[in-house]
């Protein structure tokens, strides 16, 4: 065990770890953390007290239960035969009349019903709470382990296999953990009581009733064992299905480009076949166990009839007692069955637990304490990073990095060069501690990276690789991710919310979860070198500009939204810009490129639906596809008497579409591109037209009417040129628009944001707000010309900053895939810059950019990191000219080190690499 430098005294915030216990300092292999290797170990460790409480509840509830069973007998006896006698409760004595006594007993019975119900409710509630807490704990522990997996492990297991383990596989555990002691206690207790009752009646019959239990107890677990093995197999195969499904979603393109579909389908069918075999086998065996069990249960009464009959005939037993025993035996089968079910479930759950936990114990897991410790002081990385005899062996024999020793001064730019497979990338990963060396060590100022908490490395050092990962949230959140170590400013809670917050934290602790508040403000301004949020925004924009990312974010911002409540000044400024855009369009004589929204005029470049709503739908209430069936819309149309006219127009459109497309249309995609009616709906509309021809439009069915009505809603006058909407109709739709707004019920007010010339529309994009109209159809190059105009106005009004900030709200999609790789690489570098690390390690981090852009970024970062460490693994050797020093790797070994002037001589590896380019 290695000791920590005394400056790094540790506390782990949020998790109740035992203090004073020194961290092992390296990666642990067998540490169990919050997960015990066996299910009962896990349950006992984390829920012993609660289980005991539950068991006590069960035991306490039993006498009440038996009393409530016994009461009916007393009531019946009171009704049928009555002898007055005093009742004593403690020292008090009561005398009751016949009827009064009946009322008292009935009252008691009623009370017992309530008490038993109450017990049942409370026991179930406690069981549920216990189970859910344990499930929450297990999931949390598994997830926490995921973060600590050695990176090599991810090469072996696929996410497709891991995800179902945390989501669905552990789910049944929750329900079962609450039952684990309570269920056998309740059922076993019942069973024992019945057995006791039978022995009281006659001990021979009692023995007879138990005679087959040993056989059942012996055979059934044996059979069950085989079922368990199959169960394990089933879980494994299902994981393969998950894995395969995930793989196919990623590799769909590959499968299609190589006409691989049949092969993939066949292989998937085989997998399903395997599952079928296993499941059917399990099914058969389970039911065989049931069959055996039922048969044996049926055989026991044979003994009763034979032995009991013999005893009754010989006069050793009363017939009544025999009947009582037989009926008691019937009651035995329910708890016995429950116990057997419990046994099977127990086995199932155990398998699941074992199999999940087994997957979450890879060798070489990263020490949990290193991940979550918070040292009191976080020293800066200055001086040199020293690598001594650093070796990384993969697959037990490949020396990927081989005995590298070097001292890297952390006040200049250093390039690492080498061919593919030279070990340069792995060297960078070792420096960032994303890989752990097989032997040797890395450190700064005498510290050893192997014992440094992530709190030190993660704040003093930054790393970005060739394919950085962005999280599926906003661009801004992704940029600030490097500043979120801790909840720094808790929100103020009052009243009910404060209570709820308290309760949430307490529950988190009771389930062994981290109790840090996700709703707090986590952004560390100090690390970013700014004093408040406004300054941080300045800094973010500055970093974006430095990386040449500002124009991209500006364009995202134009197509994004801005909340006028959060940014009232910005919204006001953009409203001004709307006027500016209009003036500029007039100046350039291109007003015909946009048809502005005017509440008194029909917009011929907008669909009929848009004309009717005259606003941007918010949420699904007024979504375009459902508009023709929206009850409020229909009510408005009825009120202004437009419904029949629109159905007529729909009919006309349908006729034209059928005429044009019904035969000899070029292709389905073609129809999809142009028609109001998709290729597969055409026959339906043909049928509707045929019905109208026969029965007339008056007798149209409700469904058919709705379908016809939906057609004109999509019609855009200037695009479709169908003559379906004339001037008069336009006027009436403008009238309907007025009614639509005036009559809009309160609960729908939030479902639409109306267009208004003097108001910023929160639901529309910034660009739409600026243009405040529809792009004219059929004007060549209109969009590009308009964006130019918008850009000129934005710059003239100094609003570019505002739009960029709005662009930070852009959602980057899973893995950041809505951004191009080059953009993702820049975002990742921006994230590194924002936290101002002492050392920045870049591993081919600009590979998707073009040459000049890369040089620009290198020069910019050299300036930004002047006096700090900049270590860059180059994917193009010629970029080395920008760096103060270079390290050259070959076959895992460091072969050259020095300035470019020293190294660029005939015969060196550097000159060889430079020549090769």
């Amino acid at each position, binding site marked *: 065990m290695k000791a920590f430098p005394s400056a790094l005294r540790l506390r782990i915030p949020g998790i109740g770890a035992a203090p004073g216990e020194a961290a092992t300092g390296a990666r642990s292999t067998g540490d169990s953390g919050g997960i015990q290797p066996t299910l009962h170990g896990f349950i006992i460790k984390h829920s012993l007290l609660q289980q005991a409480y539950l068991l006590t509840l069960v035991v306490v509830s039993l006498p009440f239960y038996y009393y409530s069973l016994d009461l009916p007998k007393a009531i019946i006896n009171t009704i049928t035969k009555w002898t007055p006698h005093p009742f004593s409760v403690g020292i008090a004595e009561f005398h009751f009349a016949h009827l009064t006594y009946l009322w008292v007993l009935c009252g008691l019975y009623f009370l017992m019903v309530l008490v038993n119900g109450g017990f049942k409710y409370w026991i179930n509630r406690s069981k549920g709470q216990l189970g859910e807490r344990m499930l929450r704990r297990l999931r949390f522990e598994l997830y926490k382990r995921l973060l600590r997996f050695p990176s090599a492990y991810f090469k072996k297991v696929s996410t497709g296999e891991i995800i179902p383990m945390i989501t669905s596989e552990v789910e049944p555990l929750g329900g079962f953990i609450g039952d684990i002691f309570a269920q056998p206690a309740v059922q076993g207790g019942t069973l024992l009581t019945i057995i006791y009752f039978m022995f009281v009646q006659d001990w021979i019959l009692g023995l007879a009733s138990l005679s087959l239990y040993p056989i059942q107890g012996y055979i059934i677990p044996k059979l069950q064992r085989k079922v368990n093995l199959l169960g394990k197999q089933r879980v494994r195969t299902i994981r393969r299905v998950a894995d395969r499904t995930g793989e196919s979603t990623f590799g769909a393109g590959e499968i299609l480009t190589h006409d691989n579909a049949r092969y993939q389908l066949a292989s998937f069918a085989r997998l399903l076949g395997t599952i079928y075999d296993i499941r059917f086998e399990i099914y058969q065996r389970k039911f065989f166990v049931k069959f055996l069990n039922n048969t044996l249960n049926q055989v026991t009464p044979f003994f009763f009839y034979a032995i009991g009959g013999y005893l009754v005939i010989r006069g050793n037993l009363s017939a009544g007692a025999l009947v009582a025993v037989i009926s008691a035996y019937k009651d035995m089968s329910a708890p016995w069955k429950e116990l057997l079910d419990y046994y099977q479930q127990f086995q199932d759950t155990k398998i699941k637990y074992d199999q999940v936990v087994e997957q979450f114990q890879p060798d070489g897991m990263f020490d949990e304490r290193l991940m979550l410790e918070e040292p009191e002081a976080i020293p800066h990385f200055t001086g040199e990073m020293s690598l001594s005899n650093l070796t990384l062996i993969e697959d037990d024999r490949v020396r990927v990095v081989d005995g590298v020793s070097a001292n890297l001064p952390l006040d200049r730019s250093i390039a690492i060069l080498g061919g593919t497979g030279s070990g340069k990338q792995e060297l960078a990963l070792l420096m960032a501690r994303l890989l752990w060396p097989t032997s040797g060590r890395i450190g700064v100022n005498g510290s050893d990276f192997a014992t440094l908490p992530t709190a030190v490395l993660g704040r003093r050092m930054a790393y970005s690789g060739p394919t950085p990962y962005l999280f599926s949230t906003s661009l801004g959140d992704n940029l600030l991710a490097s500043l979120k170590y801790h909840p720094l400013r808790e929100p103020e809670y009052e009243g009910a919310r404060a209570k709820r917050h308290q309760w949430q934290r307490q529950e988190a602790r009771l389930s062994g979860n981290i109790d840090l508040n996700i709703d707090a403000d986590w952004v560390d301004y100090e690390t970013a070198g700014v004093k408040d949020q406004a300054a941080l925004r300045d800094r973010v924009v500055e970093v974006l500009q430095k990386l040449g990312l500002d124009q991209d974010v500006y364009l995202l911002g134009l197509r994004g939204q801005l909340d006028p409540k959060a940014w009232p000044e910005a919204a006001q400024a953009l409203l001004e810009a709307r006027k500016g855009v209009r003036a500029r369009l007039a100046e350039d004589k291109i007003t015909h490129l946009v048809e502005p929204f005017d509440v008194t005029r029909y917009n011929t470049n907008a669909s009929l639906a848009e004309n009717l709503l005259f606003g941007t739908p918010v949420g699904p209430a007024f979504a375009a596809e459902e508009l023709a069936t929206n009850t409020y819309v229909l009510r408005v149309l009825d009120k202004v008497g437009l419904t029949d006219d629109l159905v007529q127009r729909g009919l006309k459109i349908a006729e034209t579409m059928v005429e044009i497309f019904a035969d*000899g249309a*070029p*292709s389905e995609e073609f129809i999809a*591109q142009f028609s109001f009616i998709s290729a597969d709906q055409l026959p339906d509309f043909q049928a509707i037209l045929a019905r109208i021809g026969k029965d007339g439009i008056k007798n149209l069915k409700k469904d058919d009417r709705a379908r016809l009505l939906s057609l004109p809603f999509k019609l855009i006058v200037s695009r479709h*040129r169908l003559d379906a909407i004339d001037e008069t109709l336009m006027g009436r739709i403008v009238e309907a628009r007025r009614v639509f707004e005036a009559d809009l019920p309160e609960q729908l007010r939030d479902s639409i944001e109306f267009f208004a010339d003097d108001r910023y529309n929160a639901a529309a994009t910034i660009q739409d707000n600026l243009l405040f109209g529809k792009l004219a159809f059929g004007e060549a190059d209109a969009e590009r010309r308009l964006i130019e105009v918008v850009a000129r106005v934005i710059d003239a009004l100094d609003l570019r900053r505002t739009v960029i900030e709005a662009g930070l709200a852009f959602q980057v999609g899973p893995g950041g895939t809505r951004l191009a790789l080059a953009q993702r690489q820049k975002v990742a570098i921006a994230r590194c810059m924002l936290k101002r690390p002492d050392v920045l390690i870049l591993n081919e981090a600009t590979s998707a950019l073009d040459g000049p852009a890369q040089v620009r970024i290198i020069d910019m970062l050299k300036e930004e990191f002047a006096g700090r460490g900049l270590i860059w693994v180059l994917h193009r050797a010629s970029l080395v000219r920008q760096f103060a020093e270079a390290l050259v790797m070959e076959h895992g070994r460091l072969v050259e080190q020095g300035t470019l002037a020293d190294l660029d001589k005939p015969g060196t590896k550097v000159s060889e690499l430079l020549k090769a380019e």
Partner: protein
Amino acid sequence: MSLHEEVDMLKRIPLFAQIEPPKLKLIAFTSERVAFDAGHTLFRQGDAANAAYVIVEGKAEVIVETAGGPVVVAVLGPNDFFGEIAILCDVPRTASVRADTRLITLRISKELFLRLIKEFPTMAVSIMRELAHRLEATNNQLRSEHAELERLRRQVH
């Protein structure tokens, strides 16, 4: 302008004269109306081609880039059909076209156009005839230019 008027206009173009009205409607409906401001270039010589055009309104110049600079080889007006060679032969645009005035066109996509030719042999024949006419005109022009060139050459010697 409505679909009906567009159909009437298409009827006046020799190439489409023999096509039955529903098909003309299909062409009109699926082609896009595109307007260009004066001076705007519709496409440039050498561009990849994906549509042919019919002029509804306005005038356009056909410009060929030569070693000696751009040369206007033709001026097109209403009902003229152009841009079909490049989509027929799958070659880059053989000339540039620029709007001389404000120009309104019907833009017929390559997919629709090729499909029409396959479906309507009469249309294919019309196009062949049109192309043959143009070829003949070009040959005549070449012949006269050639004769002129010979004459000049003789004068020089």
